[in-house]
């Protein structure tokens, strides 16, 4: 299916972004309204989301009922990793978590409907079935983070204080980029949404533990190739005053916003290439 000049070609990059955000807001608001029609069902789903992620932390607590330290880190320190990773991923999942449905839309052809609308396709896909229940995951992550911050004895400086929100926001953007890049990949491999899961859900699971737990090669991989280490490991180790297991300069801890910007650009490019290569189903 060939595309006629859509909103994207007329508006230019800034206008396009604005149109995208506006469309996203409207579609998300629509889904929120429709969810709220069944409040009890929504409350249960949000609670379920909260509990689902909470069981992860219960698992961690069970581990620490047997040991005092994991990879040389205490429970409050691990909780700091857990909370920052959980909050960052939760935020990305709330905003972009619907991206993994793209493969299905390519398979059944319903993507065509989105292409003919005068609204950026990315915004439509991302806001599709916007699920407010995902606030459960964010809440859980923030609660664990709150616990960590209360118990940890950190020599706070203004820089360290600033580091915490910046790391969560940049981390969310990095994860969101992974969601978008994963969706772009689904233009080719329509059934492969699970590959995306291993980087998003798998990535968060990994980042919930200190980097000393993992093999050096794996740590290298998520530092220099898929930069997940910038979501929380590097900045968190700066806050905790701990050395990074690889021999890297300490100013890397301040890079997350830049890395996030870079990831966004790359994911955006991947998305455009994917969308352009899209051929509809059937003849």
């Amino acid at each position, binding site marked *: 299916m060939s595309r006629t000049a859509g909103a994207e070609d007329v508006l230019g990059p800034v206008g396009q972004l604005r149109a995208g955000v506006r469309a996203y807001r409207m579609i998300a608001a629509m889904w929120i309204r429709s969810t709220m029609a069944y409040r009890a069902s929504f409350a249960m789903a949000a609670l379920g989301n909260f509990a689902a992620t909470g069981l992860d932390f219960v698992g961690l607590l069970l581990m620490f009922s*047997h040991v005092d330290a*994991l990879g040389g880190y205490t429970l409050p320190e691990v909780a700091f990793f857990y909370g920052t990773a959980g909050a960052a991923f939760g935020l990305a999942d709330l905003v972009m978590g619907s991206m993994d449905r793209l493969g299905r839309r390519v398979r059944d052809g319903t993507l065509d409907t989105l292409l003919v609308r005068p609204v950026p396709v990315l915004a439509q896909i991302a806001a599709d079935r916007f699920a407010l229940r995902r606030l459960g995951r964010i809440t859980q992550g923030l609660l664990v983070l709150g616990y960590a911050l209360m118990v940890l004895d950190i020599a706070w400086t203004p820089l360290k204080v600033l580091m915490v929100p910046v790391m969560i926001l940049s981390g969310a953007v990095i994860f969101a980029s992974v969601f978008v890049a994963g969706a772009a990949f689904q233009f080719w491999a329509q059934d492969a949404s699970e590959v995306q899961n291993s980087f998003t859900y798998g990535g968060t699971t990994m980042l919930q533990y200190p980097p000393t737990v993992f093999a050096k090669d794996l740590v290298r991989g998520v530092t220099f190739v898929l930069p997940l280490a910038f979501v929380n490991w590097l900045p968190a180790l700066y806050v905790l005053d701990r050395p990074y297991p690889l021999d890297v300069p300490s100013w890397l801890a301040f890079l997350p916003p830049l890395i996030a910007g870079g990831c966004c650009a790359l994911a955006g490019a991947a998305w455009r290439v994917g969308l352009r290569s899209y051929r509809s189903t059937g003849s």
Partner: protein
Amino acid sequence: MRVYAVVAAGGFRRHATYRVATAAGMFTNTVFGFILAYTFTALWDERPQLGGYDLSQALTYVWIGQALLMTTAMMGGGFENELMERIRTGDIAIDLYRPADLQFFWLANDLGRAAFHLLGRGVVPMALGALAFDLALPADPLVWVAFLCAVALGVVVSFAVRFLVALSAFWLLDGAGVAQITWLVGLFFSGMVLPLTLFPGGLGTLAQALPWSALLQIPADVFLGKHTGWGLAQAYAFQAGWAAVLLTAGRLLQTLATRRVVVQGG
């Protein structure tokens, strides 16, 4: 009997169609296997012999967990969503006219699905795990056979639970909430997060007595040679006992539910 064999083969073939999805799933199971294997290594470095496992047994437990995650449907997924949808839309009325029993039909279908997932998503991650880590693989072929029997029983228990969940849709129409709570509980109490032998005190006793321990904990322990001779018979009896109780409950609920069926527009 033949009809159920055909249905099982159909369940197998249907999942075998999704090759890319299977490959993607294998990849995911491998990634999670690696992550968990490292965290378990850190844990067992601190406390060797934790929960009665040495390090290589603990690592084996991790990879068995990845191999069985889809097989015994610890996170749900499988026939129950489809059955709930058929109940909601009323298509269930057609199923009830079929010359096959509803419960046995879906059991056969689920056994086919499980067999495919064991081969499709179990073997490769396990083999990769064995290459990367020092796993405690049983040398005795009889242990492998015993393990497969325990897995089969685990699948039946898992099916029986999910059948009950699906039937709840007769009353609730939307069974998604019940399904979600069940998979949450199931994932935790099957021993996927941590082996149940690491759960403290009363929680541990409870976890090992619940049906979900039949999904991973028991097959893994059979694989690791923790249940032999009389102990193996006891483990099987535990699984078969839960399967019988839950299947009977499903049977009763099915009878109650089908009495309630009112076909819309009929």
